């Protein structure tokens, strides 16, 4: 089993979707229990990664490789490093919670919803495991199909617009990456990422490839100015879709930078690091202000996701500046490590925030902030969780949101205090929009008669929010296991940054 652990992780949920689909719309409960069983099994299998993966040595482990297309030298090649392991655990964990979260909420064709979720989960795990560029691309694109369906069928009123925009935007980004990958293949004769990393390329070639990769992953992260699909997709997606989108799918953009831009085009990445850093700072500051004026709760959290993901790209590319210009690998490691912690933490916090909004939406069927007020009076337990996640969202020490952002700001300070200054703006703006949201939704008098009738969270919702809360706190006060898991991989990535290809 351990020889094919990664394959098992990918294909278990995908294969599990078939019986769920066969359960049909006549037996919704069977479909629900089956999908929960599959999701729990997948999570259980993913836990084996922790003992199987050796965090001390780092590098790509648990490798599997089979010839897929001999004529093109394409391999079905999988392997993981510490970063992938962390992201896979995040995926399988969130996978359970979205299925529990959708238990009663999705009444229309629940079997198709659950099946799409499971397929999506399997494909996302595939993205985190693939070490062959074409295989990566196949997973990367294929996961659009279930997400397209999820938003389109179970979404809000403008779901069709949002889901088409989401699909076309992402497809547009990635097809240029495909052309870049074909170019690399024709040069190297393989799609193997490890070989591509050692392929010598001129700065001009690297620059073209860098932008091909940048557009693919910038759309996914999303970075300013190609972030506009995200608020639409988040607002219209069903709660589960938003959670997966924010918690896992955005991370694939950041992950893509690590797997493609850093090792394959290091010189161009260093050359254009200023551009990415600039865009990240715009995301942190400007998008933070945009979030402030939102009237829709989901849109507000969506924009705050863009701002938080700005820290991920900032952390990754500030490392270039530190290594190439100052030779300061310790600070570079700190920045990279912070970016990774931020990815995981944002997965939990944004997933939790969207789950909270889902709880409110199920009761009131509105996401507008002005329709709420005084929710704490009728839903005290809900208020407890909401405030906790809001604190994590603005990066309060003791929550997971603090750890990553703090590390990235520290690293930025070593590179350039001005960058750190702008990045640190998030502590003010983030607090502003989050606290103001909490104030308007939770505190105050009950002004709306519908709010007065709301019931506090039930057991199922408590389970979902409680699980998120536990992880937010654990990572906040004791991030060491997470950082240890990723440490050697981050160190190796930072070593790659220093390698010149031209």
């Amino acid at each position: 089993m351990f020889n094919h652990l990664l394959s098992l992780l990918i294909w278990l949920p995908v294969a599990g979707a078939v019986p769920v689909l066969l359960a049909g719309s006549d037996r919704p409960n069977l479909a629900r229990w089956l999908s929960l069983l599959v999701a729990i099994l997948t999570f259980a299998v993913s836990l084996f990664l922790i003992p199987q993966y050796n965090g001390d040595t780092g590098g790509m482990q648990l490798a599997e490789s089979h010839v897929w297309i001999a004529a093109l030298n394409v391999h079905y090649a999988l392997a993981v490093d510490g970063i992938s392991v962390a992201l896979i655990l995040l995926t399988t964990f969130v996978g359970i919670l979205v299925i529990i979260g959708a238990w009663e909420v999705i009444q229309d064709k629940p079997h198709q919803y659950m099946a799409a979720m499971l397929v999506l989960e399997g494909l996302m795990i595939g993205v985190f495991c693939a070490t062959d560029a074409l295989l990566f691309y196949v997973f990367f694109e294929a996961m659009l199909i279930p997400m397209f369906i999820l938003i389109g069928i179970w979404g809000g009123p403008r779901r069709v617009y949002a889901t088409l925009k989401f699909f076309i935007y992402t497809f547009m980004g990635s097809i240029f990456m495909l052309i870049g990958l074909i170019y690399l293949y024709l040069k190297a004769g393989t799609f193997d990422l490890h070989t591509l990393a050692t392929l010598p390329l001129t700065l001009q070639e690297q620059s073209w490839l860098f932008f091909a990769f940048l557009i693919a992953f910038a759309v996914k992260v999303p970075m300013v100015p190609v972030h506009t699909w995200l608020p639409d997709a988040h607002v219209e997606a069903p709660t589960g879709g938003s959670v997966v989108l924010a918690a896992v799918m955005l991370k694939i953009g950041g992950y893509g930078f690590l797997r493609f831009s850093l090792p394959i085009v290091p010189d161009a990445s260093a050359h254009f690091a200023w551009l990415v850093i600039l865009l990240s700072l715009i995301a942190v500051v400007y998008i933070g202000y945009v979030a402030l004026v939102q009237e829709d709760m989901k849109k507000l959290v969506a924009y705050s996701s863009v701002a938080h993901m700005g820290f991920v790209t900032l952390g990754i590319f500030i490392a270039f500046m530190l290594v190439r210009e100052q030779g300061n690998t310790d600070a570079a490691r700190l920045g990279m490590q912070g970016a990774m912690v931020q990815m995981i933490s944002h997965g939990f916090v944004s997933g939790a925030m969207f789950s909270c909004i889902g709880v409110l939406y199920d009761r009131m069927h509105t996401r507008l902030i002005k329709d709420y007020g005084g929710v704490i009076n009728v839903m005290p337990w809900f208020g407890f969780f909401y405030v906790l996640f809001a604190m994590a969202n603005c990066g309060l020490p003791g929550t997971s949101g603090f750890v990553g952002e703090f590390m990235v700001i520290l690293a930025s300070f070593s590179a350039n205090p001005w960058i750190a200054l702008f990045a640190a703006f998030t502590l003010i703006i983030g607090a502003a929009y989050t606290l103001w949201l909490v104030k308007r939704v939770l505190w105050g008098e009950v002004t709306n008669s519908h709010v007065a009738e709301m019931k506090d969270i039930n057991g199922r919702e408590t389970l979902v929010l409680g699980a998120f809360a536990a992880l937010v706190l654990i990572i906040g006060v004791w991030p060491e296991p997470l950082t240890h898991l990723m440490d050697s991989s981050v160190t190796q990535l930072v070593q790659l940054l220093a390698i010149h290809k031209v």
Partner: protein
Amino acid sequence: MPTFNDILIMVPEFYLVAAACVLLLADAFLPANQRGVTLHWASIFVLIAGIYLVVAHQPAGTVTAFNGMFIRDGVAEILKVFALLCTILVFIYARPYLSDRKLLVGEFYTLMIFAVIGVMLLVSAGNLIMVYLGLELLTLSSYALVALNRDSKLSSEAAIKYFVLGALASGMLLYGISMVYGATGTLDLVQLHDAIPHSSMPHLLVFGLIFMIIGIAFKLGAAPFHMWIPDVYQGAPTAVTVFIGSAPKLAAFGMAFRLLAIGMGGYVQHWQPMLAALAVLSLAIGNLVAIVQTNLKRLLAYSTISHMGYLLLGLVNAGPEGYSSAMFYAISYALMSTAAFGVILALSRAGFECEEIDDFKGLNQRSPWMAFMMLLCMFSLAGVPPLFGFFAKLLVLQAAIHAGMMWLAIVGAVFAIIGLYYYLHVVKVMYFDKPVEGTEVRLQPDFTLRIALSLNALVLLVLGVYWGPLLGWCKQAFVG
């Protein structure tokens, strides 16, 4: 004098001609109540046996018959197998549709088999005359098939349009052939290839080449010679459209390969930019005009035009790698288009043509399985992994880049994004829209149709995961 060996090489073709004649006689003499069923299964059996004959006695390497008129090689073998396979699927999909409309007549089967014989001769042609003969056999049968529903104004209009434009294109081709003959004094493709460098009239040759390319572009349906495609696709009975969208595309690729790669191989520098221009125009016109279509058959017609643009991307490479990728594309397109039209046929019934995009509203609620089949077709046509269509696109893009035409690959990529929209629109209609009140979806009860259609659509997924052997087979055909 033809030898016994010549006849042996052409056994599959001779056999099909004989079988078609027998079917024609059977149609005349069988009692009316047995005619439909007998002809249907007999035709399918005839084609299956045809596939066996093509594959079973495939000689190693290339052999020629009748003084080089007829070539039997790996390329011809693959194209013939898939042309026959698609025609079998067409027979299965077409039967309930035609019998609902009282169009299930013996001529349908014999004309189809003759058209397939035309395809087979065309892809095996070793001589310009043979190219023309095969093409005419295919197109003349197709004209009659399009007019099968003679009481329909739309069908008759489509048939006339097809005939007039088709005749014009055939004339162009023939004119080009005569110029090439005048410049080189030979009709044999291999001799033509050798004669081109020594020709004293290179200008005449280029003129001939241009006219031949017009003929090829017309048969492929590449812009700006695409005018007939939308009308014929929409006007012809869907049972005939499904055929026109499959096997003749394989034939058109075969014809382009024989004429350009073998015959005019010495003039690559002339035909390469011409094909590139055709490709760009096809991609642009096909994808842009498809966006505004409301009729699914017409939408698929414009999508055909764009797909032929991608196929040309492979041909532009002008090397074994390019030809194999273009052939792979032609095969993938034939399978995808057969499945997509198959879904339309499966949902149509007496008095109702399920061909407007709005007819598919809410299909997922009415028939989730059919909706899923159509979803596979649409994502495959759009080129989204892990479906077959993506890998076909990957290969032609790679061929174009390898030929040093990065700009062409980028054009192909940009239009893939634009094309994505209208395929997604069909999925949106099926999955996200509510079904129209008062309408219902009734699937054709024909069991073989359902099985064949499901297999056809699932193959797009299976070949998306396991396309190595097919690619290997295609590459093998162009080696040496």
